């Protein structure tokens, strides 16, 4: 199939960017969106132009590197799908496709479609862990049974890949879905209880410091999340935060 691509090009964080038009032909439905960009890049190199820079690594939907705002939607039109798992069979011959980086103050553009998401790392560093040494000197893994429903729920929250689609989807560029997923994982497990108060307060504080917006419960984050992270996480972090504020 033939497509017209309008792609955001920006040399670096300090220069202004703009949309550039690239016609492309010979696209097969079995190609992933990123493989389509590979084809474009090979053509650009051939012509002596600079290839389009974008983040990607595992290309199987788990590392969370890939991003891209495709036709205004994080990771494109398919639900529960990362850009690397989005296949060209979902586009039609003759389509014009607009490709931009994730947009948020807390995600500055590095180059073209690549953004800096280190703010997510810093939120996790503020308390997204259980303070236990890795010496192995701990109790037997089966000494503390965990109710299956809670374990499964904790797992579901923990499957967040940290891609930032929730932020890119949100009118306020809020990171509540991301932060709440991490807080929830630990809130649901007995191992996380001891530090629950400090954790939620510190992580929320760091999230605000990074310049993410407030949550106004539009739910766009959940709709665009490639891993189906539930809005219940946000309800849970609000409860945890209230409780911690009252205690703290």
């Amino acid at each position, binding site marked *: 199939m033939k497509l017209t691509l309008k792609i955001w090009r920006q040399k670096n964080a300090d220069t202004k960017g703009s949309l550039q038009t690239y016609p492309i032909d010979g696209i097969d439905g079995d190609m992933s969106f990123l493989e389509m960009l590979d084809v474009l890049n090979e053509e650009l190199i051939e012509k002596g132009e600079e290839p389009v820079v974008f983040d990607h690594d595992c290309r199987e939907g788990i590392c969370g590197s890939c991003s891209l705002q495709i036709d205004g939607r994080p990771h494109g039109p398919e639900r529960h799908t990362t850009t690397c798992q989005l296949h060209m*069979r979902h586009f039609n011959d003759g389509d014009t496709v607009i490709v931009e980086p994730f947009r948020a103050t807390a995600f500055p553009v590095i180059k073209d479609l690549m953004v800096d998401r280190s703010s997510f790392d810093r939120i996790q560093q503020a308390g997204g862990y259980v303070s236990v040494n890795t010496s192995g000197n701990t109790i037997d893994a089966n000494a503390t049974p965990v109710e299956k429903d809670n374990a499964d729920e904790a797992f579901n929250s923990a499957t967040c890949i940290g891609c930032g689609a929730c932020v890119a989807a949100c009118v306020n560029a809020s990171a509540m879905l991301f932060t709440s997923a991490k807080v929830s994982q630990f809130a649901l497990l007995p191992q996380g209880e001891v530090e629950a108060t400090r954790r939620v307060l510190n992580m929320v504080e760091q999230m605000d410091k990074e310049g993410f917006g407030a949550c106004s419960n539009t739910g766009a984050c959940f709709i665009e999340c490639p891993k189906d992270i539930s809005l219940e996480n946000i309800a849970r972090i609000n409860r945890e935060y209230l409780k911690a504020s009252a205690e703290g």
Partner: protein
Amino acid sequence: MSILDSKIPEGPLAEKWTNHKNNINLVNPANKRNIDVIVVGTGLAGGSAAATLAELGYNVKTFCYQDSPRRAHSIAAQGGINASKNYQGDGDSDYRLFYDTVKGGDYRSREGNVYRLAEVSANIIDQCVAQGVPFAREYGGLLDNRSFGGVLVSRTFYAKGQTGQQLLLGAYAAMNRQINRGKIEAFNRHEMLDLVLIDGKARGIIARDLVTGELERHSAHAVVIASGGYGNVFFLSTNAMGSNVTASWKIHKKGAYFANPCYTQIHPTCIPVSGDHQSKLTLMSESLRNDGRIWVPKKKEDAEAIRQGKLKPTELSEDERDYYLERRYPSFGNLVPRDVASRAAKERCDAGFGVNKTGEAVFLDFASAIKRYGKEQAVMHGNHNPSEEEVTKLGKEVVANKYGNLFEMYEKIVDANPYETPMMIYPAVHYTMGGIWVDYNLQSTIPGCYVTGEANFSDHGANRLGASALMQGLADGYFILPYTIGDYLADDIRTGKIATDQPEFEEAEKNVRERLEKLINNKGSKSVDDIHKRLGKIMWNKCGMSRNAKGLKEAITEIRELREQFWNEVKVPGSMDEMNPELEKAGRVADFLELGELFAKDALHREESCGGHFREEYQTDEGEAMRDDENFMYVAAWEYNGEPSEAVLHKEQLEYDYIEVKTRSYK
């Protein structure tokens, strides 16, 4: 020929590790504050090592090319992690895990290392649970297990099909705790481009900041390489796009021996190649072989009709199908080890029974599992006479619960529903058992340069069993390296900070810069990917699932020619002092072009078949691998000597005192 000293401690097998820990030097906590350690790579092996070293009190610097340590490719591991907990009471023990691993590796791994791995395995699970890793649980609240290939017990712990993700997030969380305490400084989007030696010791690295393009000097008292495997030498593999051999290759060129480069794992259950545009291959977890049955049609006409789309697989009756693994290996069936399953799939496809357009695919079928689980569930719900629809519905729910995310992934990529029609799968490059030679302490032949996880060669012999990579990565990082490195660092308590303005740093930086300049100024016409794809084809066709002397000799010549062409004709756009992914790729492919030749040389010299290394000249009448223990029961460790072709072979003889060496049989 020199004899490599593996430094396996004296004493009975089960006491070696404890004795060793009791006898090695320790560093006093106050002195650890004055010692710096660099860790390159932040996957399970690197992330866990960094966290533990920082907890102990060392100053740690981590380096990864990804934008966050959490994205290292360990994240993509699906099926699970082994541990000899024997929670199922099915007869598991440290010895059995040790035995299975040595046998699975076709008697080409070191007894002492493997036993230690088995010994610490149970503790990994305790540790991870304490960190809040959400493993799968049963209704009673206790941990659940499943089975993996090559073993007869259920010892694999898992978190759906995302076990690697959950374990890596655990290690990343442990790192974050230390970053928050200021004990780890994380250099993300940084790539190590050389090792710096001072007086023969590893004392630092040259790294490139991938965002600004700047070259940086970082010093330390020891350097840990945990940068993963080199499967991407094949271009197409289940590795991440950025996975590379560069860190390992740089230390190899500085004196670290490279062991058994030809031992590559070709994983039997991957999604088949769909076309020339393909950039990577996707694994379908081995855990699927717990419930999926692998087959091709019995008759060639049927295979032909399926290929042409005239016949559906579901239209073939049971006796028209050849469940070839169950037929050839009745005692292990679909759960034979990976090397055996891969070769069997290739054998059927080469014989004309392949089932996709290219003839390079077999079926992985869940219909019987759906039926079996459905009936079980119906009975559990009190329905002793369920209709076929009820059975299918209940059975699908169970399968979805176990493998849901894998089925979804398959459907997204292939556009076919595996609940309704069997999956199509084919072997693909997945893991490399070969790697940098290390002794029992995980130290390479360079003093102060340690290697952990997939980047070393030590535990899996010629074939790795499923769910053992995660186990090894975390064992090395959490429990082994942090002890053994202390023995070396104990001599460094008075050294003080290593200055980076020494001539050795200057020289190393200059060499790195010149090489980058050469790549960027080369006004060639071939893209990096173009050459990488051609390297991959040579590797797959001549150093892939089966190899022979003629093909390997051709591969050596072809790779050498391609390497020359690369340096004459490669074209790298952009400049050095900016974010430039093409330049990053070019440097990595240049290293693959050298490693590839050593790989073929190693495969050519090993005149036997063992594990993942199958030489067509050495097979039984039934097509099974034929080892030559008399002449090849050794680790082949190659010393760099100017060119891959000039590499010097050193042999570490393998000795088996606690296990009887037999022909591996899964029949």
